[in-house]
Protein backbone atom coordinates (compact mmCIF):
# COMPACT_ATOMS: atom_id res chain seq x y z
CA UNK A 1 0.00 0.00 0.00
CA UNK A 2 1.15 3.52 -0.74
CA UNK A 3 2.12 5.42 2.41
CA UNK A 4 -0.34 7.97 1.18
CA UNK A 5 -3.22 5.59 1.87
CA UNK A 6 -2.02 4.50 5.30
CA UNK A 7 -4.38 6.33 7.65
CA UNK A 8 -1.78 6.29 10.43
CA UNK A 9 0.81 8.16 8.35
CA UNK A 10 1.06 11.89 7.65
CA UNK A 11 1.64 13.28 4.19
CA UNK A 12 5.22 13.54 3.07
CA UNK A 13 6.31 17.04 2.05
CA UNK A 14 3.65 18.61 -0.10
CA UNK A 15 6.01 19.78 -2.86
CA UNK A 16 4.20 18.81 -6.05
CA UNK A 17 1.51 21.42 -6.63
CA UNK A 18 -0.85 20.54 -9.46
CA UNK A 19 -1.71 22.71 -12.45
CA UNK A 20 -4.24 25.48 -11.98
CA UNK A 21 -7.02 23.64 -13.76
CA UNK A 22 -6.80 20.60 -11.45
CA UNK A 23 -6.48 22.82 -8.41
CA UNK A 24 -9.60 24.71 -9.48
CA UNK A 25 -11.55 21.50 -10.03
CA UNK A 26 -10.60 20.04 -6.66
CA UNK A 27 -11.27 23.32 -4.87
CA UNK A 28 -14.75 23.34 -6.41
CA UNK A 29 -15.20 19.75 -5.29
CA UNK A 30 -14.29 20.64 -1.68
CA UNK A 31 -16.72 23.53 -1.67
CA UNK A 32 -19.52 21.43 -3.13
CA UNK A 33 -18.83 18.69 -0.57
CA UNK A 34 -19.33 20.96 2.43
CA UNK A 35 -22.40 22.50 0.86
CA UNK A 36 -23.96 19.03 1.02
CA UNK A 37 -22.95 18.74 4.69
CA UNK A 38 -24.30 22.20 5.53
CA UNK A 39 -27.61 21.17 3.95
CA UNK A 40 -27.59 17.87 5.93
CA UNK A 41 -27.75 15.95 2.63
CA UNK A 42 -25.74 13.17 4.29
CA UNK A 43 -26.89 10.26 2.14
CA UNK A 44 -26.03 12.21 -0.98
CA UNK A 45 -22.66 13.13 0.53
CA UNK A 46 -21.96 9.46 1.14
CA UNK A 47 -22.93 8.28 -2.34
CA UNK A 48 -21.54 11.21 -4.34
CA UNK A 49 -18.38 12.16 -2.48
CA UNK A 50 -17.13 9.12 -0.58
CA UNK A 51 -15.11 6.29 -2.09
CA UNK A 52 -16.22 2.77 -1.00
CA UNK A 53 -12.66 2.23 0.31
CA UNK A 54 -12.84 5.33 2.53
CA UNK A 55 -10.77 5.63 5.70
CA UNK A 56 -11.99 8.57 7.80
CA UNK A 57 -10.06 9.29 11.00
CA UNK A 58 -10.25 12.01 13.64
CA UNK A 59 -8.14 11.23 16.73
CA UNK A 60 -8.58 12.69 20.17
CA UNK A 61 -5.94 15.34 20.84
CA UNK A 62 -3.92 15.21 24.04
CA UNK A 63 -1.60 17.69 25.68
CA UNK A 64 1.85 16.12 25.92
CA UNK A 65 5.37 17.33 26.55
CA UNK A 66 7.31 18.16 23.40
CA UNK A 67 9.77 15.36 24.17
CA UNK A 68 7.01 12.75 24.63
CA UNK A 69 7.45 10.29 21.73
CA UNK A 70 3.71 9.57 21.67
CA UNK A 71 2.88 13.09 20.54
CA UNK A 72 -0.55 14.70 20.56
CA UNK A 73 -2.35 11.70 19.06
CA UNK A 74 -1.71 8.06 18.24
CA UNK A 75 -3.39 5.80 15.74
CA UNK A 76 -5.15 2.85 17.38
CA UNK A 77 -6.13 4.82 20.49
CA UNK A 78 -9.29 6.77 21.28
CA UNK A 79 -10.78 8.63 18.32
CA UNK A 80 -13.90 10.60 17.42
CA UNK A 81 -13.99 8.93 14.01
CA UNK A 82 -12.09 5.93 12.67
CA UNK A 83 -14.54 4.89 10.03
CA UNK A 84 -14.85 2.77 6.96
CA UNK A 85 -17.88 3.05 4.70
CA UNK A 86 -19.87 0.81 7.05
CA UNK A 87 -19.41 3.12 10.05
CA UNK A 88 -20.13 6.27 8.05
CA UNK A 89 -23.31 4.65 6.77
CA UNK A 90 -24.51 3.90 10.34
CA UNK A 91 -23.95 7.52 11.34
CA UNK A 92 -25.88 8.71 8.28
CA UNK A 93 -28.75 6.33 9.09
CA UNK A 94 -29.14 7.93 12.51
CA UNK A 95 -29.34 11.43 10.99
CA UNK A 96 -32.14 10.22 8.78
CA UNK A 97 -34.30 9.02 11.70
CA UNK A 98 -37.06 11.47 12.71
CA UNK A 99 -36.21 10.76 16.37
CA UNK A 100 -32.60 11.96 16.06
CA UNK A 101 -33.42 14.54 18.73
CA UNK A 102 -30.04 16.30 18.67
CA UNK A 103 -30.93 17.21 15.08
CA UNK A 104 -34.62 17.88 15.54
CA UNK A 105 -35.28 20.79 15.52
CA UNK A 106 -32.74 21.29 12.79
CA UNK A 107 -29.21 22.46 13.50
CA UNK A 108 -27.89 25.42 11.47
CA UNK A 109 -24.55 24.33 9.99
CA UNK A 110 -21.70 26.15 8.36
CA UNK A 111 -18.41 24.71 7.13
CA UNK A 112 -15.84 27.21 5.91
CA UNK A 113 -12.93 25.66 3.97
CA UNK A 114 -9.68 27.47 3.23
CA UNK A 115 -5.88 27.12 2.91
CA UNK A 116 -6.44 24.58 0.15
CA UNK A 117 -3.26 23.00 -1.24
CA UNK A 118 -3.53 20.34 -3.94
CA UNK A 119 -0.57 18.12 -4.70
CA UNK A 120 0.12 15.41 -7.22
CA UNK A 121 1.29 12.01 -6.01
CA UNK A 122 3.17 9.08 -7.50
CA UNK A 123 -0.22 7.66 -8.55
CA UNK A 124 -1.69 9.94 -11.26
CA UNK A 125 -5.27 9.18 -10.11
CA UNK A 126 -4.59 10.25 -6.49
CA UNK A 127 -4.26 13.77 -5.13
CA UNK A 128 -3.00 14.83 -1.71
CA UNK A 129 -5.09 17.74 -0.49
CA UNK A 130 -4.53 19.80 2.62
CA UNK A 131 -7.17 22.22 3.87
CA UNK A 132 -8.36 23.88 7.07
CA UNK A 133 -11.91 24.34 8.25
CA UNK A 134 -14.11 26.31 10.59
CA UNK A 135 -17.27 24.49 11.53
CA UNK A 136 -20.08 26.39 13.20
CA UNK A 137 -23.17 24.69 14.54
CA UNK A 138 -25.99 26.69 16.05
CA UNK A 139 -29.27 25.33 17.29
CA UNK A 140 -32.27 26.22 19.37
CA UNK A 141 -31.96 29.87 20.44
CA UNK A 142 -28.34 30.40 21.36
CA UNK A 143 -26.52 27.05 21.51
CA UNK A 144 -23.36 27.51 19.47
CA UNK A 145 -20.44 25.19 18.91
CA UNK A 146 -17.36 26.10 16.89
CA UNK A 147 -14.71 23.60 15.87
CA UNK A 148 -11.53 24.53 13.99
CA UNK A 149 -9.19 22.02 12.42
CA UNK A 150 -7.17 20.84 9.47
CA UNK A 151 -7.65 17.97 7.08
CA UNK A 152 -5.31 15.76 5.09
CA UNK A 153 -7.35 14.27 2.26
CA UNK A 154 -6.57 11.85 -0.52
CA UNK A 155 -8.94 12.23 -3.47
CA UNK A 156 -9.22 9.62 -6.20
CA UNK A 157 -10.10 10.69 -9.73
CA UNK A 158 -12.43 8.25 -11.45
CA UNK A 159 -15.00 8.14 -14.23
CA UNK A 160 -17.66 9.75 -12.00
CA UNK A 161 -15.38 12.54 -10.79
CA UNK A 162 -13.42 12.78 -7.56
CA UNK A 163 -14.09 10.64 -4.50
CA UNK A 164 -12.72 10.99 -0.98
CA UNK A 165 -10.50 7.96 -0.29
CA UNK A 166 -8.77 8.99 2.94
CA UNK A 167 -9.33 11.83 5.39
CA UNK A 168 -7.33 12.66 8.51
CA UNK A 169 -8.99 15.37 10.63
CA UNK A 170 -7.06 17.17 13.36
CA UNK A 171 -9.01 19.59 15.52
CA UNK A 172 -7.26 22.10 17.77
CA UNK A 173 -9.26 21.27 20.90
CA UNK A 174 -8.08 18.84 23.57
CA UNK A 175 -11.29 18.81 25.65
CA UNK A 176 -13.99 19.01 23.00
CA UNK A 177 -15.84 22.20 23.92
CA UNK A 178 -19.15 20.77 22.70
CA UNK A 179 -21.64 18.23 23.97
CA UNK A 180 -21.60 16.30 20.72
CA UNK A 181 -20.39 16.19 17.12
CA UNK A 182 -23.54 16.09 15.03
CA UNK A 183 -21.70 16.74 11.80
CA UNK A 184 -18.87 15.53 9.58
CA UNK A 185 -15.70 17.46 8.79
Amino acid sequence: MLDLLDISKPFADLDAPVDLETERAITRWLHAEVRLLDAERYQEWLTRCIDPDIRYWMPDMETRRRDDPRGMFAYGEAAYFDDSWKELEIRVKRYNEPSAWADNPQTRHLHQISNIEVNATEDPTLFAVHSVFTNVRNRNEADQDIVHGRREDVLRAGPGGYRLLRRRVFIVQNVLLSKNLNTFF
Partner: protein
Amino acid sequence: MCDTGCAGNAGRPNMAPVYPKAGRYPDYARLVDRNRAQVDRRVFVDEGVYQAELQQIFARSWLFLAHESQIPNPGDFIRTSMGEDDVIVVRQRDRTVRAFLNSCPHRGNRVCMVDAGSKARGFICNYHGWSFGIDGGLRGTDGKVYEKDETFEKAQIGLTPVAQVDSYKGLIFGTFDPNAPSLLEFFGPFTFYLDIMLDNDEGGTEFIGGAIKSEIDCNWKFPAENFVGDILHAFWTHQSGAQAILGGGVDLGKRYDELAFQASVYGHGIETNLDKVGNTRTLGYPELVDYVFDLSERARDRLGDLRSRAIGAISSCTIFPNFSFLPGQNTFRVWHPRGPGKIELVVWTLVNKNAPDHIKELYRKGVMMTFSPGGVFEMDDGENWEYSTRVNQGFVTRQQPLHYALGLQSADLDRDLPGHIHKGSLNDANQRLFYTRWAEFMEHDNWTDLQNGETAPPQKTASAAE
Protein backbone atom coordinates in the same frame (compact mmCIF):
# COMPACT_ATOMS: atom_id res chain seq x y z
CA MET B 1 2.64 36.15 60.68
CA CYS B 2 4.00 37.41 64.03
CA ASP B 3 3.27 34.58 66.41
CA THR B 4 6.94 33.82 67.22
CA GLY B 5 7.98 37.02 68.94
CA CYS B 6 7.69 39.49 66.11
CA ALA B 7 11.09 41.20 66.31
CA GLY B 8 10.85 42.04 62.65
CA ASN B 9 11.06 38.36 61.73
CA ALA B 10 8.12 36.34 60.45
CA GLY B 11 7.40 32.89 61.82
CA ARG B 12 7.93 29.86 59.63
CA PRO B 13 5.08 28.46 57.55
CA ASN B 14 3.26 25.30 58.51
CA MET B 15 3.17 23.42 55.22
CA ALA B 16 1.47 20.25 56.48
CA PRO B 17 -1.36 19.08 54.19
CA VAL B 18 -4.79 20.49 55.00
CA TYR B 19 -7.68 18.08 54.53
CA PRO B 20 -10.96 19.93 54.84
CA LYS B 21 -13.43 18.98 57.55
CA ALA B 22 -16.95 18.02 56.61
CA GLY B 23 -19.88 20.02 57.89
CA ARG B 24 -23.60 19.44 58.25
CA TYR B 25 -26.17 20.77 55.76
CA PRO B 26 -29.55 19.43 56.92
CA ASP B 27 -31.41 22.07 54.88
CA TYR B 28 -29.78 20.80 51.72
CA ALA B 29 -30.39 17.17 52.74
CA ARG B 30 -34.12 17.96 52.93
CA LEU B 31 -34.10 18.94 49.24
CA VAL B 32 -34.37 15.19 48.63
CA ASP B 33 -37.81 14.14 49.87
CA ARG B 34 -37.71 10.37 50.35
CA ASN B 35 -41.29 10.19 51.60
CA ARG B 36 -42.66 11.77 48.45
CA ALA B 37 -40.09 10.35 45.98
CA GLN B 38 -39.34 13.81 44.74
CA VAL B 39 -36.26 15.98 44.36
CA ASP B 40 -36.04 19.75 44.66
CA ARG B 41 -34.55 21.25 41.50
CA ARG B 42 -32.30 23.59 43.48
CA VAL B 43 -29.89 20.65 43.85
CA PHE B 44 -29.05 21.16 40.16
CA VAL B 45 -28.46 24.92 39.98
CA ASP B 46 -27.83 26.42 43.41
CA GLU B 47 -24.26 27.65 43.93
CA GLY B 48 -24.45 27.10 47.70
CA VAL B 49 -25.52 23.49 47.19
CA TYR B 50 -22.70 23.02 44.70
CA GLN B 51 -20.03 24.32 47.08
CA ALA B 52 -21.44 22.00 49.76
CA GLU B 53 -21.16 19.10 47.29
CA LEU B 54 -17.46 19.85 46.77
CA GLN B 55 -16.95 19.82 50.55
CA GLN B 56 -19.25 17.00 51.59
CA ILE B 57 -19.10 14.63 48.62
CA PHE B 58 -16.04 15.26 46.46
CA ALA B 59 -13.63 15.98 49.34
CA ARG B 60 -14.70 12.77 51.14
CA SER B 61 -15.77 10.07 48.68
CA TRP B 62 -13.44 7.61 47.01
CA LEU B 63 -13.20 8.99 43.46
CA PHE B 64 -11.99 7.19 40.34
CA LEU B 65 -8.44 8.20 39.36
CA ALA B 66 -7.08 5.84 36.71
CA HIS B 67 -6.77 2.27 35.51
CA GLU B 68 -3.58 0.47 36.57
CA SER B 69 -2.84 -0.21 32.90
CA GLN B 70 -2.56 3.52 32.15
CA ILE B 71 0.51 3.89 34.38
CA PRO B 72 2.34 0.52 34.26
CA ASN B 73 5.90 1.72 35.06
CA PRO B 74 7.52 3.87 37.75
CA GLY B 75 7.25 7.52 36.76
CA ASP B 76 4.22 6.92 34.51
CA PHE B 77 1.55 9.45 35.36
CA ILE B 78 -1.78 10.87 34.32
CA ARG B 79 -3.45 14.09 35.32
CA THR B 80 -7.10 14.04 36.34
CA SER B 81 -9.59 15.75 38.64
CA MET B 82 -11.14 14.97 41.98
CA GLY B 83 -14.15 17.23 41.98
CA GLU B 84 -12.64 20.48 40.70
CA ASP B 85 -9.23 19.71 42.20
CA ASP B 86 -6.46 19.05 39.68
CA VAL B 87 -4.57 15.87 40.58
CA ILE B 88 -1.50 13.97 39.34
CA VAL B 89 -1.61 10.17 39.66
CA VAL B 90 1.85 8.64 39.47
CA ARG B 91 3.38 5.15 39.76
CA GLN B 92 6.12 5.06 42.42
CA ARG B 93 9.45 3.24 42.28
CA ASP B 94 8.05 0.57 44.62
CA ARG B 95 5.17 0.13 42.10
CA THR B 96 2.54 1.55 44.42
CA VAL B 97 0.44 4.46 43.15
CA ARG B 98 0.26 7.84 44.80
CA ALA B 99 -1.65 10.97 43.86
CA PHE B 100 -0.98 14.64 44.58
CA LEU B 101 -2.66 17.98 44.15
CA ASN B 102 -1.26 19.50 40.97
CA SER B 103 -0.35 22.79 42.61
CA CYS B 104 3.02 24.13 43.68
CA PRO B 105 3.08 25.04 47.41
CA HIS B 106 5.09 28.17 46.54
CA ARG B 107 2.69 30.24 44.41
CA GLY B 108 0.15 27.62 43.49
CA ASN B 109 0.85 27.15 39.78
CA ARG B 110 0.35 23.72 38.24
CA VAL B 111 3.49 21.60 38.26
CA CYS B 112 2.19 19.29 35.54
CA MET B 113 0.73 20.83 32.39
CA VAL B 114 0.16 17.68 30.34
CA ASP B 115 -2.53 14.99 30.28
CA ALA B 116 -0.19 12.06 30.78
CA GLY B 117 3.39 10.92 30.36
CA SER B 118 5.72 8.05 30.98
CA LYS B 119 8.83 7.47 33.09
CA ALA B 120 8.89 10.97 34.53
CA ARG B 121 11.59 11.65 37.12
CA GLY B 122 9.54 14.41 38.67
CA PHE B 123 7.52 17.55 38.10
CA ILE B 124 8.90 21.07 37.81
CA CYS B 125 6.86 24.22 38.27
CA ASN B 126 7.32 26.61 35.33
CA TYR B 127 7.06 29.67 37.57
CA HIS B 128 10.11 29.56 39.85
CA GLY B 129 11.55 26.18 38.96
CA TRP B 130 10.57 24.35 42.13
CA SER B 131 11.01 20.69 41.35
CA PHE B 132 9.31 17.72 42.96
CA GLY B 133 10.04 14.01 42.88
CA ILE B 134 7.43 11.48 41.81
CA ASP B 135 6.96 10.94 45.56
CA GLY B 136 5.79 14.56 45.80
CA GLY B 137 8.75 15.74 47.88
CA LEU B 138 10.49 19.03 47.08
CA ARG B 139 13.82 18.29 45.40
CA GLY B 140 15.10 21.79 44.73
CA THR B 141 14.44 25.33 43.61
CA ASP B 142 15.89 27.25 40.66
CA GLY B 143 19.32 28.68 41.39
CA LYS B 144 19.15 27.20 44.92
CA VAL B 145 18.16 30.66 46.15
CA TYR B 146 15.76 29.23 48.72
CA GLU B 147 18.24 26.58 49.79
CA LYS B 148 20.76 29.32 50.63
CA ASP B 149 18.25 30.84 53.07
CA GLU B 150 19.04 29.23 56.40
CA THR B 151 15.46 29.28 57.65
CA PHE B 152 14.22 27.32 54.60
CA GLU B 153 12.79 23.96 55.67
CA LYS B 154 12.87 22.04 52.43
CA ALA B 155 11.98 18.70 53.96
CA GLN B 156 8.67 20.13 55.18
CA ILE B 157 7.53 21.04 51.68
CA GLY B 158 5.94 18.90 49.03
CA LEU B 159 2.93 18.41 46.80
CA THR B 160 -0.17 17.75 48.89
CA PRO B 161 -0.84 14.00 48.80
CA VAL B 162 -4.31 12.62 48.17
CA ALA B 163 -4.98 11.20 51.64
CA GLN B 164 -5.69 7.62 50.59
CA VAL B 165 -5.16 5.78 47.31
CA ASP B 166 -6.18 2.19 46.70
CA SER B 167 -7.23 0.01 43.83
CA TYR B 168 -9.85 -2.62 43.17
CA LYS B 169 -9.19 -5.13 40.38
CA GLY B 170 -7.38 -2.64 38.16
CA LEU B 171 -9.32 0.52 39.00
CA ILE B 172 -7.48 3.08 41.14
CA PHE B 173 -9.45 5.35 43.45
CA GLY B 174 -8.46 8.10 45.86
CA THR B 175 -10.00 10.13 48.67
CA PHE B 176 -9.00 13.43 50.27
CA ASP B 177 -10.39 12.22 53.60
CA PRO B 178 -7.81 10.55 55.88
CA ASN B 179 -10.72 9.26 57.97
CA ALA B 180 -12.65 7.69 55.11
CA PRO B 181 -13.23 3.96 55.47
CA SER B 182 -11.31 1.66 53.14
CA LEU B 183 -12.19 1.49 49.47
CA LEU B 184 -13.72 -1.94 50.04
CA GLU B 185 -15.90 -0.59 52.83
CA PHE B 186 -16.92 2.34 50.61
CA PHE B 187 -18.08 -0.15 47.95
CA GLY B 188 -19.57 -2.56 50.49
CA PRO B 189 -21.01 -5.68 48.85
CA PHE B 190 -21.40 -3.74 45.58
CA THR B 191 -18.10 -5.38 44.50
CA PHE B 192 -20.32 -8.38 43.69
CA TYR B 193 -21.61 -6.36 40.73
CA LEU B 194 -18.31 -4.65 39.83
CA ASP B 195 -16.81 -8.08 39.23
CA ILE B 196 -19.21 -8.57 36.30
CA MET B 197 -16.92 -6.28 34.33
CA LEU B 198 -13.67 -6.39 36.30
CA ASP B 199 -13.28 -10.11 36.91
CA ASN B 200 -15.12 -12.07 34.24
CA ASP B 201 -12.02 -13.80 32.87
CA GLU B 202 -8.40 -14.66 33.65
CA GLY B 203 -5.79 -11.96 33.41
CA GLY B 204 -7.66 -8.83 34.44
CA THR B 205 -8.60 -5.78 32.40
CA GLU B 206 -6.99 -2.78 30.76
CA PHE B 207 -7.98 0.56 29.24
CA ILE B 208 -7.39 1.13 25.54
CA GLY B 209 -5.08 4.13 25.11
CA GLY B 210 -6.31 7.70 24.98
CA ALA B 211 -9.44 9.30 26.38
CA ILE B 212 -12.21 11.32 24.79
CA LYS B 213 -12.96 14.46 26.77
CA SER B 214 -15.87 16.79 26.23
CA GLU B 215 -17.88 19.48 27.97
CA ILE B 216 -21.59 19.33 28.60
CA ASP B 217 -23.45 22.27 30.14
CA CYS B 218 -25.33 20.15 32.64
CA ASN B 219 -25.28 19.38 36.35
CA TRP B 220 -23.08 16.34 37.09
CA LYS B 221 -25.92 14.46 38.81
CA PHE B 222 -28.06 14.13 35.66
CA PRO B 223 -25.63 11.81 33.85
CA ALA B 224 -24.71 10.04 37.12
CA GLU B 225 -28.39 9.26 37.88
CA ASN B 226 -28.93 8.31 34.24
CA PHE B 227 -26.32 5.55 34.46
CA VAL B 228 -27.33 4.47 37.98
CA GLY B 229 -30.69 3.24 36.82
CA ASP B 230 -32.36 4.95 33.86
CA ILE B 231 -32.76 2.39 31.08
CA LEU B 232 -36.17 3.93 30.48
CA HIS B 233 -34.68 6.83 28.49
CA ALA B 234 -33.05 4.46 26.00
CA PHE B 235 -36.34 3.72 24.27
CA TRP B 236 -37.15 7.34 23.50
CA THR B 237 -33.84 9.23 23.59
CA HIS B 238 -31.90 6.58 21.69
CA GLN B 239 -34.52 5.36 19.26
CA SER B 240 -32.57 6.84 16.34
CA GLY B 241 -29.27 5.27 17.37
CA ALA B 242 -30.88 1.87 17.89
CA GLN B 243 -32.55 2.08 14.48
CA ALA B 244 -29.24 3.01 12.84
CA ILE B 245 -27.24 0.19 14.41
CA LEU B 246 -29.80 -2.56 15.03
CA GLY B 247 -32.48 -1.72 12.52
CA GLY B 248 -35.01 -1.79 15.37
CA GLY B 249 -35.78 -0.43 18.82
CA VAL B 250 -34.15 -1.27 22.14
CA ASP B 251 -35.20 -4.79 23.23
CA LEU B 252 -35.08 -5.76 26.91
CA GLY B 253 -35.20 -9.49 26.17
CA LYS B 254 -37.91 -12.14 26.43
CA ARG B 255 -37.49 -12.85 30.15
CA TYR B 256 -37.54 -9.24 31.36
CA ASP B 257 -40.30 -9.77 33.95
CA GLU B 258 -38.48 -12.69 35.47
CA LEU B 259 -34.85 -11.53 35.31
CA ALA B 260 -34.47 -7.75 35.26
CA PHE B 261 -33.63 -5.92 38.47
CA GLN B 262 -31.94 -2.93 40.03
CA ALA B 263 -29.41 -3.21 42.88
CA SER B 264 -28.08 -0.41 45.08
CA VAL B 265 -25.51 -0.17 47.88
CA TYR B 266 -24.46 3.16 49.45
CA GLY B 267 -25.86 4.97 46.39
CA HIS B 268 -23.84 2.89 43.91
CA GLY B 269 -26.29 1.26 41.54
CA ILE B 270 -26.65 -1.12 38.65
CA GLU B 271 -29.67 -1.97 36.53
CA THR B 272 -29.56 -5.08 34.36
CA ASN B 273 -31.79 -7.35 32.30
CA LEU B 274 -29.53 -10.45 32.35
CA ASP B 275 -30.24 -10.85 28.64
CA LYS B 276 -26.59 -11.79 27.94
CA VAL B 277 -25.72 -9.60 24.94
CA GLY B 278 -28.22 -6.74 24.59
CA ASN B 279 -25.66 -4.00 25.25
CA THR B 280 -22.89 -5.65 23.26
CA ARG B 281 -25.20 -6.04 20.27
CA THR B 282 -25.65 -2.26 20.08
CA LEU B 283 -21.94 -1.82 19.31
CA GLY B 284 -22.78 -3.12 15.84
CA TYR B 285 -20.16 -5.85 15.42
CA PRO B 286 -21.45 -9.48 15.37
CA GLU B 287 -17.95 -10.79 16.26
CA LEU B 288 -18.26 -9.00 19.62
CA VAL B 289 -21.60 -10.68 20.30
CA ASP B 290 -20.01 -14.09 19.62
CA TYR B 291 -17.11 -13.18 21.89
CA VAL B 292 -19.42 -12.20 24.76
CA PHE B 293 -21.54 -15.34 24.34
CA ASP B 294 -18.38 -17.45 24.71
CA LEU B 295 -17.12 -15.29 27.55
CA SER B 296 -20.46 -15.63 29.31
CA GLU B 297 -20.23 -19.45 29.11
CA ARG B 298 -16.66 -19.45 30.40
CA ALA B 299 -17.50 -17.01 33.20
CA ARG B 300 -20.20 -19.27 34.65
CA ASP B 301 -17.72 -20.99 36.99
CA ARG B 302 -16.15 -17.71 38.01
CA LEU B 303 -19.19 -15.53 38.50
CA GLY B 304 -22.12 -17.92 38.68
CA ASP B 305 -25.09 -18.05 36.32
CA LEU B 306 -26.68 -14.72 37.20
CA ARG B 307 -23.59 -12.55 36.83
CA SER B 308 -22.34 -14.40 33.76
CA ARG B 309 -25.61 -13.38 32.07
CA ALA B 310 -24.93 -9.73 32.94
CA ILE B 311 -21.54 -9.30 31.18
CA GLY B 312 -23.06 -8.09 27.93
CA ALA B 313 -26.66 -7.49 29.01
CA ILE B 314 -28.66 -4.30 28.69
CA SER B 315 -27.46 -2.60 31.83
CA SER B 316 -25.73 0.45 33.30
CA CYS B 317 -23.92 1.34 36.48
CA THR B 318 -22.75 4.32 38.54
CA ILE B 319 -20.29 4.23 41.42
CA PHE B 320 -21.31 7.08 43.70
CA PRO B 321 -20.75 9.88 43.09
CA ASN B 322 -19.58 10.34 39.48
CA PHE B 323 -17.98 7.23 37.93
CA SER B 324 -20.13 5.24 35.51
CA PHE B 325 -19.88 2.39 33.05
CA LEU B 326 -21.92 0.26 30.71
CA PRO B 327 -21.38 -3.50 30.92
CA GLY B 328 -21.27 -5.06 27.48
CA GLN B 329 -20.50 -1.76 25.80
CA ASN B 330 -17.38 -1.36 27.97
CA THR B 331 -17.46 2.43 28.13
CA PHE B 332 -16.10 3.78 31.44
CA ARG B 333 -16.48 7.45 32.25
CA VAL B 334 -16.19 10.18 34.86
CA TRP B 335 -18.52 13.17 35.03
CA HIS B 336 -16.20 15.80 36.55
CA PRO B 337 -18.15 18.72 38.05
CA ARG B 338 -17.20 22.15 36.69
CA GLY B 339 -19.69 24.33 38.52
CA PRO B 340 -23.37 23.54 39.07
CA GLY B 341 -24.09 23.84 35.35
CA LYS B 342 -21.13 22.24 33.62
CA ILE B 343 -19.23 18.95 33.49
CA GLU B 344 -16.12 17.64 31.82
CA LEU B 345 -16.82 14.13 30.61
CA VAL B 346 -13.86 11.77 30.21
CA VAL B 347 -14.46 8.44 28.47
CA TRP B 348 -12.32 5.31 28.20
CA THR B 349 -12.82 1.82 26.79
CA LEU B 350 -12.17 -1.21 29.01
CA VAL B 351 -11.23 -4.63 27.64
CA ASN B 352 -10.06 -7.92 29.07
CA LYS B 353 -6.28 -8.13 28.77
CA ASN B 354 -6.51 -11.62 27.33
CA ALA B 355 -9.04 -10.69 24.63
CA PRO B 356 -7.72 -11.16 21.07
CA ASP B 357 -6.40 -7.98 19.44
CA HIS B 358 -9.18 -7.85 16.86
CA ILE B 359 -11.77 -7.99 19.67
CA LYS B 360 -10.07 -5.11 21.49
CA GLU B 361 -10.05 -3.15 18.24
CA LEU B 362 -13.79 -3.75 17.74
CA TYR B 363 -14.52 -2.54 21.29
CA ARG B 364 -12.47 0.59 20.56
CA LYS B 365 -14.46 1.28 17.42
CA GLY B 366 -17.76 0.17 18.92
CA VAL B 367 -17.50 2.60 21.85
CA MET B 368 -16.49 5.35 19.43
CA MET B 369 -19.54 4.61 17.26
CA THR B 370 -21.97 4.65 20.19
CA PHE B 371 -20.74 6.33 23.39
CA SER B 372 -18.46 9.17 22.31
CA PRO B 373 -19.50 12.71 21.27
CA GLY B 374 -20.04 11.63 17.66
CA GLY B 375 -21.50 8.25 18.66
CA VAL B 376 -25.05 7.45 17.63
CA PHE B 377 -26.25 7.07 21.26
CA GLU B 378 -24.29 9.67 23.20
CA MET B 379 -25.14 12.22 20.49
CA ASP B 380 -28.68 12.54 21.86
CA ASP B 381 -27.94 12.53 25.61
CA GLY B 382 -26.23 15.89 26.03
CA GLU B 383 -29.06 18.18 25.05
CA ASN B 384 -31.47 16.42 27.44
CA TRP B 385 -29.15 16.93 30.40
CA GLU B 386 -28.33 20.50 29.40
CA TYR B 387 -31.95 21.60 29.30
CA SER B 388 -32.85 19.57 32.41
CA THR B 389 -30.27 21.78 34.11
CA ARG B 390 -30.71 25.12 32.37
CA VAL B 391 -34.48 25.49 32.68
CA ASN B 392 -34.03 25.74 36.46
CA GLN B 393 -32.58 29.22 36.07
CA GLY B 394 -36.26 30.09 35.96
CA PHE B 395 -37.17 31.22 39.49
CA VAL B 396 -40.66 29.76 39.39
CA THR B 397 -39.55 26.70 37.42
CA ARG B 398 -37.08 25.69 40.09
CA GLN B 399 -39.77 25.74 42.77
CA GLN B 400 -41.47 22.82 41.02
CA PRO B 401 -40.56 19.33 42.29
CA LEU B 402 -39.19 16.58 40.06
CA HIS B 403 -40.89 13.18 39.99
CA TYR B 404 -38.82 10.09 40.88
CA ALA B 405 -41.66 7.73 41.74
CA LEU B 406 -41.54 4.85 39.25
CA GLY B 407 -41.62 1.48 41.04
CA LEU B 408 -42.52 2.59 44.56
CA GLN B 409 -43.90 -0.87 45.36
CA SER B 410 -41.18 -2.84 43.58
CA ALA B 411 -38.80 -3.78 46.42
CA ASP B 412 -37.74 -7.40 46.01
CA LEU B 413 -37.22 -8.88 49.46
CA ASP B 414 -37.01 -12.48 48.26
CA ARG B 415 -34.12 -12.37 45.82
CA ASP B 416 -30.93 -13.14 47.70
CA LEU B 417 -28.61 -10.61 46.08
CA PRO B 418 -26.39 -8.00 47.76
CA GLY B 419 -27.88 -4.55 48.36
CA HIS B 420 -31.32 -3.04 47.93
CA ILE B 421 -33.00 -5.03 45.17
CA HIS B 422 -35.95 -3.82 43.13
CA LYS B 423 -37.87 -5.73 40.50
CA GLY B 424 -37.51 -4.66 36.89
CA SER B 425 -34.91 -2.33 35.45
CA LEU B 426 -37.57 0.17 34.32
CA ASN B 427 -37.62 1.75 37.74
CA ASP B 428 -36.61 4.93 39.58
CA ALA B 429 -35.49 2.91 42.62
CA ASN B 430 -31.74 3.27 42.10
CA GLN B 431 -32.13 6.96 41.34
CA ARG B 432 -34.06 7.48 44.58
CA LEU B 433 -31.27 5.69 46.47
CA PHE B 434 -28.62 7.74 44.62
CA TYR B 435 -30.27 10.96 45.87
CA THR B 436 -30.80 9.45 49.31
CA ARG B 437 -27.05 8.84 49.42
CA TRP B 438 -26.50 12.43 48.26
CA ALA B 439 -28.69 13.61 51.15
CA GLU B 440 -26.76 11.43 53.61
CA PHE B 441 -23.53 13.15 52.54
CA MET B 442 -25.18 16.55 53.05
CA GLU B 443 -26.57 15.57 56.44
CA HIS B 444 -23.65 13.83 58.12
CA ASP B 445 -20.21 15.05 59.13
CA ASN B 446 -18.91 11.59 60.08
CA TRP B 447 -18.48 8.20 58.45
CA THR B 448 -20.25 6.23 61.18
CA ASP B 449 -23.51 7.89 60.27
CA LEU B 450 -22.65 7.83 56.56
CA GLN B 451 -22.12 4.08 56.53
CA ASN B 452 -25.16 3.19 58.63
CA GLY B 453 -27.99 5.09 56.99
CA GLU B 454 -30.82 4.13 54.69
CA THR B 455 -28.56 3.34 51.72
CA ALA B 456 -26.41 0.89 53.70
CA PRO B 457 -26.81 -2.67 52.46
CA PRO B 458 -29.41 -4.86 54.19
CA GLN B 459 -27.66 -7.70 55.99
CA LYS B 460 -27.65 -10.78 53.79
CA THR B 461 -25.20 -12.85 51.79
CA ALA B 462 -24.70 -13.31 48.09
CA SER B 463 -24.22 -17.06 48.27
CA ALA B 464 -27.74 -18.04 47.30
CA ALA B 465 -27.44 -16.10 44.06
CA GLU B 466 -25.01 -18.61 42.64
